[in-house]
């Protein structure tokens, strides 16, 4: 049993080493594909077997695994310190040194090294493993053709792909380790590995801006690491155990414990790029698109959310819980607002990611069974839809050479397949009956119990999010010439895109059963009864399957009606009668010349300007976090 867990962690690490040292493209491709396949199977196998009680890992080559992790921990901190030194970042150096000092104190003085079962898998972990292994693997597969094209575009003399895939695949292993660990020290170690991998991946292209953004990501996450260490020490000093399962059983015992948990939440906030730490995730989009997809959807940021969710049951009902909820809701609102002002596709996705993570954290803070269910659903469905969208933007960027949504106008005319998949992805992000909206629905219903400010922030945020997603999807629709040539996609590009878009739809349909078999046992008390394929609770009913059937039939009819459009008269748009004869988007102007019209989205610059809003939001967010931490004391 524990073998499967170890496999999930060590196989990616081994594959990463193969990718790095065997400098052959074929071998690399095979290694990535095989790892993806085995990870997917292992994750599904784990799912089939059900939860795993905390288990010991034993020793490697006669060295205790706890000791090994401790050694690796210090080695990793050393490496991070080295990069901080090399990039002359005092922040990184300071935060890392502080971590080292505290960790030495913790390991040598405080901790009595009892044996703690290192790995465990409850439903939360299983869902996370599923997301990481399946979605993450698909992203790695997508990266194979993408990176080839990417490097051809950059005209590199020597390929840097071994290094790239080393970190990509290693990342998956680290994430699996993080979500499966039952020893808080192990969790900390994997937390640091993800920090380091993301730093290397963001800086992968080694341009000046990439390096600068990578350094920023590193110092912010090093701060998170420091918060993690402090939190860990405070929690240990009160609870006296490193065993997370035991901690969960213990519940909140006092102010010190709560403060420790607050620090752990802060660590989660930095990793999940909550305001005011959002800048590192926005900076991360300079990296090749598979990295953004990996960081934003399934791994890095979900690690942060996971940390908060993991400890959420301990602080249920405390002021800290409300604080976390308010911080999360604020991030949701702020990032939704910031997203309205953006035209860069990746940046829109980044803001929407941070906003959705805020929503998940808000749910963790509300901390009722309904809210926790919402959080889990959001994690699952957001990972699928968002990774799909990132991969789509990457594909579009390679096709049209831009990631600006204004340049994607009428994309259906030239790249119908990619455009359609992107539109499906966007719709699954914001409309019923899809999973993300199911989560949002639960979140709003759960928030009605908690706090009026949270309700207002969620209401505003969800309206803002519809604005920037709807106009993006709409502007990609467009006319297609009857004789336009078909779009070609490499198999390894199409496979992940199709799998993810199908997954986002089919899994949404299956959400009542996902809820029954996976979510309900973890949440404990049952917030929903499942009947007729719908989720019923005292709050309200989401009729998943009937809605799917009705809307699906309606959509099918609409598609059928629309597919007969060749029999309908096609007429150019109304332009006051002065349509140009030669071009469909131009007026006849003076001297019978063409005067093209251009239209852009309303970005509401005066209300939602990023440069104006960001400082205000950052200040407010810092205030809220201080309030949250102070409230814990």
């Amino acid at each position, binding site marked *: 049993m524990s073998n499967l867990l170890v496999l999930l962690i060590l196989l990616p690490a081994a594959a990463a080493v193969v990718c790095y040292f065997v400098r052959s493209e074929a071998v690399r491709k095979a290694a990535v594909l095989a790892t993806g396949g085995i990870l997917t199977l292992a994750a599904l196998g784990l799912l089939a077997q059900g939860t795993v009680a905390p288990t010991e890992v034993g020793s490697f080559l006669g060295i205790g695994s706890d000791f090994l992790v401790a050694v690796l921990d210090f080695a990793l901190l050393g490496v991070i310190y080295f990069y901080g030194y090399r990039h002359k970042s005092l922040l990184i150096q300071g935060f890392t040194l502080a971590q080292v000092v505290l960790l030495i104190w913790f390991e040598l003085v405080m901790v009595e090294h009892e044996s703690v079962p290192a790995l465990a898998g409850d439903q939360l972990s299983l869902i996370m493993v599923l997301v990481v292994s399946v979605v993450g693997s698909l992203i790695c597969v997508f990266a194979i053709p993408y990176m080839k094209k990417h490097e051809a575009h950059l005209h590199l003399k020597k390929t840097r792909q071994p290094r790239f895939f080393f970190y990509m695949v290693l990342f998956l292993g680290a994430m699996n380790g993080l979500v499966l660990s039952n020893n808080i020290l192990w969790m900390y170690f994997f937390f640091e590995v993800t920090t380091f991998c993301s730093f290397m991946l963001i800086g992968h292209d080694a341009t000046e801006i990439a390096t600068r953004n990578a350094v920023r990501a590193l110092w912010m996450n090093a701060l998170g690491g420091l918060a993690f260490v402090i939190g860990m020490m405070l929690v240990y000093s009160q609870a006296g155990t490193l065993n997370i399962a035991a901690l969960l059983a213990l519940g909140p015992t006092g102010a010190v414990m709560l403060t420790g948990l607050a620090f752990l939440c802060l660590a989660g906030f930095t990793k999940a790029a909550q305001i005011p730490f959002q800048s590192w995730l926005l900076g991360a989009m300079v990296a090749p698109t598979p990295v953004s997809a990996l960081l934003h959807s399934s791994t890095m940021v979900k690690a942060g959310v996971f940390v908060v969710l993991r400890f959420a049951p301990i602080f249920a009902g405390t002021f800290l819980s409300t604080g976390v909820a308010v911080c999360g809701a604020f991030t949701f609102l702020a990032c939704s607002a910031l997203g309205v002002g953006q035209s860069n596709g990746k940046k829109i996705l980044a803001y929407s990611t941070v906003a959705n993570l805020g929503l998940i954290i808000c749910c963790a803070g509300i901390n009722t069974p309904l809210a926790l269910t919402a959080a889990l659903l959001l994690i699952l469905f957001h990972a699928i839809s968002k990774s799909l969208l990132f991969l789509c933007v990457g594909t579009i960027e390679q096709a049209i050479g831009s990631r600006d949504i204004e340049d994607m106008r009428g994309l259906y005319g030239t790249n119908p397949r990619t455009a359609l998949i992107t539109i499906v992805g966007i719709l699954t992000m914001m409309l019923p009956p899809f999973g993300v909206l199911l989560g949002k629905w639960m979140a709003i219903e759960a928030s009605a119990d908690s706090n009026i400010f949270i309700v207002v922030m969620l209401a505003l945020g969800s309206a803002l999010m519809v604005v920037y997603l709807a106009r993006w999807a709409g502007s990609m629709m467009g006319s297609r010439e009857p004789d336009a040539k078909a779009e070609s996609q490499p198999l390894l590009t199409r496979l992940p895109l199709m799998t993810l878009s199908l997954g986002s739809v089919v899994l949404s349909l299956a959400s009542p059963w996902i809820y029954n078999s996976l979510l309900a046992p973890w949440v404990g008390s049952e917030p929903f009864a499942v009947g007729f394929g719908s989720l019923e609770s005292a709050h309200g009913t989401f009729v998943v399957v009937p809605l799917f059937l009705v809307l699906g039939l309606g959509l099918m009819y609409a598609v059928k009606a629309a597919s007969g459009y060749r029999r309908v*008269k096609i*007429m*150019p748009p*109304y332009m*006051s*009668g*002065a*349509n140009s004869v030669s071009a469909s988007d131009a007026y*006849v102007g003076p001297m019978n010349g063409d005067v093209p019209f251009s239209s852009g989205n309303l970005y509401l610059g005066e209300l939602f300007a990023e440069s104006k809003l960001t400082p205000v939001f950052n200040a407010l967010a810092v205030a809220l976090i201080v309030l949250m931490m102070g409230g814990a004391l």
Partner: protein
Amino acid sequence: MFGSFIKKSRAKSPWIMHFDCGSCNGCDIEVLACLTPLYDVERFGIVHVGNPKHADVLLVTGTVNHRNKKVLKNLYDQMPEPKAVIAIGSCGNSGGIFREAYNVVGGVDKVIPVDVYVPGCPAKPEAIIDGVVAGLAKFAQKVEEAK
């Protein structure tokens, strides 16, 4: 049953678009006067729309010149069938006193088929309403013949 209701409805809901080809504004003002409470053409279900794609009847005032004949043709083409055209005022009918001018093509019927001619300089609102009603009768006949 539904088919006959649709047929009946055609005459009851003529949506009108007004295009000023090059009028002195005399006829235009009379067209707009039809909308005022005094004449209230909405009684007959007539709605003044701004877009050929929503229109059933095209009211044209003024002479057609070489510059705007393309626009007139284009607007006419963008109206979905069934549709009717009503030329209003002396200029719209024949070019009026401008018919010999070097830049004038002539009446509306030089460019698009006209169903009803409403005379006058300017045409009276009563005459315009009468023209629309006559146009609807023709248009019902046209639909009938097309079958």
